[in-house]
C-alpha cells in the first residue's frame, strides 16, 4: 500500500490519503503559499479553479493531483 499523500506546501495529510484529496485541499485552502506552489508548477491557479467551476466533471483536480503525485517522490520524509 502506498504512503498517504501529504500537501507539498503545508505537509497536511489528505483526508483519504489520495492525491485528488490533496488537490481539493489545495484549492480549498487557496492561500498565497498554496497558490504560489501551483504557479511554480507552471499552472495557473485561477485558471484551474475557473475551469473546475465552469465545466462538468473534475478535470482541474485531476490535473493538479497528477502533479502532486509526481512531487511526492521528491518530498522529504
Amino acid at each position, binding site marked *: 500500500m502506498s504512503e498517504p499523500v501529504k500537501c507539498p506546501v503545508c505537509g497536511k495529510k489528505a*483526508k483519504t490519503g489520495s492525491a485528488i484529496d490533496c488537490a*481539493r485541499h489545495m*484549492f*480549498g485552502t*487557496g*492561500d498565497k503559499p498554496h497558490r504560489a506552489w501551483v504557479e511554480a508548477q507552471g499552472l495557473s*491557479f*485561477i485558471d484551474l*479553479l*475557473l475551469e*473546475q*467551476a*465552469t465545466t*462538468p*466533471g*473534475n478535470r482541474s483536480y485531476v490535473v493538479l493531483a497528477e502533479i502532486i503525485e509526481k512531487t511526492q517522490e521528491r518530498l522529504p520524509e
Partner: protein
Amino acid sequence: MKKYSVINTHVHNVDGIAKVTGRAIYTFDVKLPGMLYGKILRSPHPHAKILDIDYGKALDLPGVIGVVTGKDTLGVKQGIWRRYQDLCDEQILPVDKVRYIGEPVAAVAAMTEEIAEQALDLIDVQYEVLPAVYEPLDAIKKEAPEIHEGFERNINVTRHIEWGDVEGAFDEAEYIREDWFKCGGQAHMCMETRAAVSSYTPDGKLTVYHSSQSPYYMRGLLAGVLGLKESSIRVISHYVGGGFGGKFELDGAIFCSAVLSMKLCRPVKIVFTREEDFIATKRRTPMSYYVRTGVKKDGTFCAREAKVFTNGGAYTGMGATALYLTGFFHSFPYRWKGYRYDGYRVYTNTLPSTSMRGFGAPQAMWCSEQQIEWIAADLGLDSIEMRRKNAHYSGYEVPDQASIASCGIDQCFDVVQKWIKEKGKLPENRAIGLSAAGFMSGGIFNWFDSPYSFSSAVVTINYDGTVELHVGAQDIGQGSNTTLAIICAEALGVKIEDIKVHSGDTDHCPADLGAWGSRQTLMAGNAVKMAAEDAKKQLLEVAYAQSGFNIVYDLDIKNRWVHALARPERGYDYAELVKKAIRGKDGQRIVGRGYYTPHRKGMISPAYSYMMQAVEVEIDKDTGKIKLIDSLTAHDCGQPINHLGLIGQLEGAFSMAAGYGYLEYMPYEDGKLMNPNLVDYKVMRATEMPEVPVAEIDTYEPEGPYGAKEAGEGLTNPTAAAIGNAIFHALGVQMKECPIKPEMIVNALNEKEAKEKEGKE
C-alpha cells in the same frame, strides 16, 4: 396519564399581552434623555474612490450636533467570520472606497430626524468613479475591475463537497439529465427595519438598544471595531420585529449610532427607512446552478454534480456559510452514491448577500426538486415513489457530513399521497406541485470563535415558587421565549404562568450565539432543560430528606404537585417544598444552570428536520398569473413543543417561501435596485395566502429536548420548487428561473407552442 403537562398544549405567547397592547418596547420605541437622531449619507456610485468629504456646511446647519466619517473610526475591517481574517472585509464607514450603491459614507446626528436628513444634502463628497461589475460571471473575467485587493478574479470564497466515486456512479446511471438554473435575491423584509440607539457615557460604557438576532455577537463585533472591551458594552434587544437571518451582523444603524455617540457623548438613535432597509442592508444570495444528475431507469439515484456561482455583492457577510450549506442541502433529503459540489462566491458591486431563512437551501431545493420531478416525468415514474426510494432514513449517514438519528420523510410522503388522492381530478390549468426537503436543527458553526457554550440558561426559583429563566437565546418574533418557558415548566413540574423569561440583555443573560441556524429549540432548549433539571434536583433532595420514604421510591414534581411516582395522589404543594428548600439553604434562592455545546455531531448540525410541501396552483394561460389555491405541509419536527408557535412558524415560512417562488423580485440596473419600496416589491398579502394546513409528523430526536427539532426555517426550502412543479404539471413548461414572473410563463408557453408546431411541420 398524559405524558406531558405543558409541552404541545395550546400555550399563548408569554409576551403576547405586551405585544397586542402596544406595551412591548422595540428599539424603534426607545427614547433616552438628551437623545439625538442620526441619518446616514450613502454612496450614489456602485464603485468609487472616496477622495474627500467636506461636511463643514452640514455642521453649520442649526440643530446639527455632529458628523462622522470613516476617519472617525479605527478603520477596522470586520465580519462575523472572525476565525478567518481574509473574510473580515467590511468597514461600515469605509475610509478609501465604496463598493455598492447605498454604502454608508458619513453619518449626521441632529436634534431631529428632519434636520439630520437636511444636513445630508450639505455634505460634499468627492469621488473618483471606478468601473463596476454586477454579475458573477462578468466579475470573474480577466478584464473585470478588482473589487477587493488580493482577490483574484473577484473570487471571494470557494467550497467543495464530495463523497463516493462520482464518475463511477455516473457510469452506472442509465439516464443523465443536466440543467441550468437561476435564483434571485430576496429582501429579509422585517416588520421592524434595522434600528439602534447607542448611548456612550463618560465612564467608558456603551449601552446599545438594537434590533438584533444575537446581542452577544453584536457586543463582540462592536468591541472589535470600536476598540472597547466586551464588558464595556451592553446590548439590549428585548423585543425584535423580525430577523430572518438579516440581523446578526453589524449594520449601519448600530455602527454609526455607536460612533456618533462615542464622539458626542450623547445617545444617538438611527432607524432605517424601508428604502434603506432594501438598498443598504443585505439580501438572500442570488445563485446560478448547474446540476447534472444520473439515475437508473427504475428511479434509483446514482450520482449528482453541481457547480454554483453566487452573487456575493460587495462583502462576505454570512455568504460563505450560505455557499457551503447550499451545496450540502442540495443533496437532501436523498442518498447519493457519488456527490460532488463546487461552489464559488464572487464579489460584485451590488448589495452584499448573506444568510436568509433557509441559509442557501431554498435555492438548492429550487433546482434539485424541480429537476427530480422532471426526471420522474422523463422516465414515466411516480415522483413521490421515486423520492421515497432514495430518501434518507433514521440511522442513515451522509458520508463525512452528518448522522441522521431521526427522519420522518417517509411519513411525509404518505400524508401527501393521501391528500392528493382525496383531491381527485382538478380543473383545467390547475395542478399540484410537490417538493421535499430536510434542514438542520442548530448550526454547528463557530466562525465567530466564541469561547462560550453555544447556549446557556440559568433558572432561579423564588420563595413563592415562581421562576426567573435567564437565557441568552433571542426572541425575534419566532416565539422562542414561549418555547423555552414551556420546556422550563415541563422540566421543573410547574405551570407556564410560573415562568418569567429574561432575554436580550448581554449584562444580565448568559452568552448564547443567538437566533440563527434553527438553533433555539434544540440548543437553547437543551440548556434550559438542563438548568431546570438541576434546580429540580436540588428541590427533590430536600423532599427526599424529609419524606421518610424508602429510598427506592422515586419522587417527582408535576403541575406544582410534589409526589412519589408510585402514589401520585399523595403529595403536597410545590411552593411548600420551595420554601423549605430555601430555608435549608440559608435563605439562598435555588439556582440551576444549564448549557449546550455540540460535540461529535458532524460538521453541520446535531439533528435534521424533514418535510414535504404540496401546493395546488392555478395559472392563467393568457396572462401567466399564478394563484395559490390550496396547500399541505407535512413536517417532521420531532416532538412538537410549542403547538401554536409551530403552526405560526410553518405558515410564516410558507408565505416567505412562496413569495420567493413567484413574487419577490430584486431587479438591478447598473448596480441600483429598481424597486426599493413595498409598492413595487411584492410580498405575500393575506388575499394571496391559501389555507396552509399542517400535518405534524411526530418523530423522536434523541439529541433534542424531549425529542424536539427544528420547525420554521426548513419549510422555507421546498415551497418555490413546489410552485414550479405545479406549473410544470399544469402547462408542461419547465421554469428554470426564480422568482417566476408571469411573462416567463407566457414566453415558455409560446416557445412550447412554437416547438410543437415545428414538430408537426
